[in-house]
């Protein structure tokens, strides 16, 4: 098995499915769905295999592949996973498969929908397994356009039109990536003299260690990357695309976008921002922490006032990303482990939320807190899904959400006590809006309007099962997740020690 290109197979599974679909008749809808489900299952199985056979004691990049790709730019088709990217990859595959199942009942042009979905999943997968910056960028930007087309065709128009939502989403992310590209180009040119240039992220990190990037340059370049990745991670004040975009998008896109795509922002900040530009990360740390606090409080506060379920979850995801940013900004091993784990946790729960909302909306065409009530009577399984996701969201011990948030607070308290305390207080708001929403839509007297709607069963149960297993499994055995993440973040230790005394924004406000 040593030479089996496992990661390439994971990446190619959805691409192969997309190509295959081009040749399947648009009328044989069932084959279209089955092909996609098969491809994603293969991807998931391979990833699970990788997850459990990853050698924790050795750490570092494993399952590596390396093929020279574009010689004059120094691009390699280099794949590999470590303790930080492997959980993200697992998350992608989990949500990808769940998204395929939640789109099972799409009737409008299903073939095109699934082709775009497969391209989208392939793009996201590629970003997490790429060791080469060029491949990373390639995959990162590939995802934007399928999302636009999916939103405008299969999206829904409620508070904002789906055309508006799609365009807002696209332009925000592309503008962010424009700044990021400038930063990456500058980085690439600064790292090595002309003949030795490379996009290999490890080599770039070494260049940083050898002092090829001056402090001023790192601060400048990191700021550009922060604009790009920050807007992807819905960092305040670049967050407003996120609720509008999710509200307009079809279920599968909301799931993938909130579940994994957003996490590329956090992943990129760690993989590129911290590893390649450590002094820049250190300098902007306090600013990020401040914005993170605003994210947590402000978004949670807005979520309180929302009626549309998708907006509640949209703002809640902005709020949760605040914790991720806080964990990143504290720049120690514990807090960064928490940030990575929290990305996984939030991915699973938000995908489950969107899958359940999608199910309810598809049946009832309602998703307002004001209209839905007492669904637990008619749809006990869906209600279970809502409860699982909701409880994980407010950090109930025993579910996936607890350990990561706890870790972030432990890690960040020593660095930014004030911000950490405020952010912890944000949990109160989270509990408030989550419980209020769940209580209104799930419980209360039986409403006969909903009697005619069936509970989830068969294929519609699959997202709940897949995501539920992850939600509970990682909750009961947090070591599975935290051990993996820890093996990745441990390697940051020497780096973090090195920058411990570096200057920071406003002298490192606490």
């Amino acid at each position: 098995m040593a030479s089996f290109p496992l990661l390439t197979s994971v990446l190619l599974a959805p691409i192969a499915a997309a190509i295959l679909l081009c040749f399947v008749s648009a009328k044989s809808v069932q084959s279209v769905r089955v092909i996609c489900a098969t491809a994603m299952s293969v991807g998931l199985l391979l990833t699970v295999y990788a997850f459990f056979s990853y050698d924790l004691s050795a750490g570092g990049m494993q399952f590596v592949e390396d093929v020279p790709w574009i010689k004059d730019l120094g691009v390699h088709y280099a794949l590999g996973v470590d303790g930080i990217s492997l959980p993200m990859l697992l998350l992608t595959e989990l949500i990808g498969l769940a998204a395929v199942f939640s789109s099972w009942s799409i009737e409008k042009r299903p073939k095109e929908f699934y082709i775009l979905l497969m391209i989208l999943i392939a793009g996201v997968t590629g970003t997490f397994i790429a060791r080469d910056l060029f491949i990373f960028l390639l995959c990162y930007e590939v995802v934007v356009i399928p999302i636009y087309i999916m939103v405008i065709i299969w999206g829904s128009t409620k508070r904002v039109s789906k055309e508006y939502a799609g365009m807002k989403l696209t332009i925000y992310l592309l503008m962010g990536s424009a700044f990021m590209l400038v930063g990456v180009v500058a980085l690439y040119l600064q790292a090595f003299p002309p003949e030795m240039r490379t996009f290999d992220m490890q080599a770039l990190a070494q260049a940083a260690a050898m002092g090829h990037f001056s402090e001023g340059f790192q601060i400048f370049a990191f700021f550009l990357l922060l604009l790009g990745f920050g807007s992807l991670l819905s960092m305040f004040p670049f967050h407003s695309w996120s609720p509008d975009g999710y509200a307009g998008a079809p279920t599968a896109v909301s799931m993938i976008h909130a579940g994994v795509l957003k996490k590329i922002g956090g992943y990129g900040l760690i993989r590129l921002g911290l590893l390649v530009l450590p002094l820049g990360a250190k300098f902007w740390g306090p600013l990020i922490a401040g914005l993170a606090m605003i994210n947590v409080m402000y978004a949670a506060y807005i979520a309180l006032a929302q009626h549309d379920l998708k907006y509640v979850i949209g703002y809640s995801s902005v709020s949760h990303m605040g914790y991720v940013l806080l964990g990143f900004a504290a720049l120690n091993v514990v807090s960064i482990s928490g940030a990575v784990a929290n990305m996984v946790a939030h991915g699973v729960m938000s995908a489950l939320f969107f899958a359940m909302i999608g199910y309810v909306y598809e049946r009832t065409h309602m998703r307002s807190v004001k209209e839905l009530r007492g669904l637990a009577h008619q749809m006990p399984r869906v209600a279970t899904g809502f409860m699982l996701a909701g409880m994980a969201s407010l950090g109930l011990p025993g579910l996936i959400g607890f350990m990561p948030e706890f870790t972030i607070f432990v890690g960040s308290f020593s660095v930014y006590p004030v911000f950490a305390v405020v952010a912890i207080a944000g949990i109160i708001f989270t509990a408030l809006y989550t419980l209020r929403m769940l209580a209104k839509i799930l419980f209360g007297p039986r409403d006969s309007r909903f009697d005619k709607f069936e509970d989830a069963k068969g294929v519609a149960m699959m997202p709940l099962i897949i995501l539920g297993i992850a939600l509970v499994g990682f909750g009961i055995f947090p070591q599975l997740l935290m051990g993996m993440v820890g093996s990745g973040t441990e390697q940051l230790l020497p780096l973090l020690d090195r920058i411990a005394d570096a200057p920071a924004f406003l002298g490192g406000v606490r």
Partner: protein
Amino acid sequence: MNFAVINTEIFILALGLFAVVMDLILPRNESHKSIGAVLIFSLTAWLLYMFTMYTGPFDPTLGFMSPDRYFTKTLYIVDNYALFFKQLFIVAVIFTMLFASDYVQSVLRYKGEFYAILMLALLGMCVLASANDFLTLFIGLELMTISFYILVGARMSSKDSSEAAVKYLIVGSVSTAVMLYGISLVYGSVGSIQFFEVCRNPHLFYPTGIVGITLIMVGFFFKLSIIPFHMWAPDVYQGAPTPVTALLAMGSKAAGIAAFMRALYVAFPMLGMYWLPILSFLAAICMVFGNIMAIKQRDVKRMLAYSSIAQAGYMMVGIIAADVAGMKAVMFYAMLYVFANVGAFAVLSVVEAKKGSTSHDAMSGLSQSAPVLAAVMTISLLSMAGIPPTAGFAGKLYLFTAVVDQGYLWLAFVGFVMSMISVYYYLLVAKAMYLGKGDGDKWVISGAMRAAVVLSVVATILFGVWPEKLAELTNLAASTFLQ
């Protein structure tokens, strides 16, 4: 007189004459597609043959003036750089003929002439790529431009086409006059029109020389539709028959760039201090305003005209870098721009033939009546915007890494931000195609059209994901040029 060197030009001229003769021989009521087919096959064969003409990396033992690359002294040079651009023009013309064959047959009154004049335009472009003195350059430019005046007006029954032709003729003549005046001033100050001698002469720094260079550059700016000399482009693009518009955007522009780069780097390298700031300012203006003006357009051809202004700005960025990496980037970008344009204009020519217009309304519902064409259009437009995995991304990366390396970080800022803004109006077209309701019937697409669009899209994606081979070729062309 080394006729072996100019075999490509002789071959193209022969093809043009062949088209004229065939037009006479063929009965009036017989399809003229066969002429196109013969031309396509011969040009494809020649294109492949041209790969054998590339010379390897510079060999110092041969010396700088290795005679086998020149036709009559140093007036006319066929180096790797010229070869690459000639191949680019031939690719552009082959694709144009591929997707134009139906259009020519159904819309144009004089079909044989279309092919003959197309060949002459191609000949003009080839001369431009090889021109190594100002008079040769002028001859090439005129041959190309005059052929285009005729081609633009080829849709005899359409008022728009005639208007476009007249407009192009007037603006083109003015720019020609300006450039000729500039050439005469340069000749007046240095006493020569050969690039090699102009560059060595210190009299170039006198005011007459500077004015001459400025006027020559203005002439080029007209041809490349650089703001503020762009006014002709939207009307001409919209009025011209779609295949001709395509060729104007990809061939004529690339030819202008080829000659412009040679003139700047060979004849005026000493004056870099003078033209670099001008070029960087105009490039930024083009990228900003070309894209902003394109946003408001509701006709896709007109939108592409403004977008081509922005694209000229991107390519200027590579010229500003003024080193091997920059030239390589320009050539790479010019080549991928050909493929993107072929995809977009081929689809537009189908839409124009079916619906009689190329507005957003005419595009609506294309994803239902012709899903392949809608996909091709989307991918081609995204390549112009520079979104991976299309070649546009790799091209922009080459361009902007080259220019940032020379210290122009602000240009990369402008370029990347504006190219992301450009996605907005490209996506409006995608929106029209994917959202609008079609009229329900499936369109029949001819084999040649299908071949053209599929080949162009395959090339666009291939060079986006794996640009290795094209990059090697452009690198060879660029590195042997600047010896």
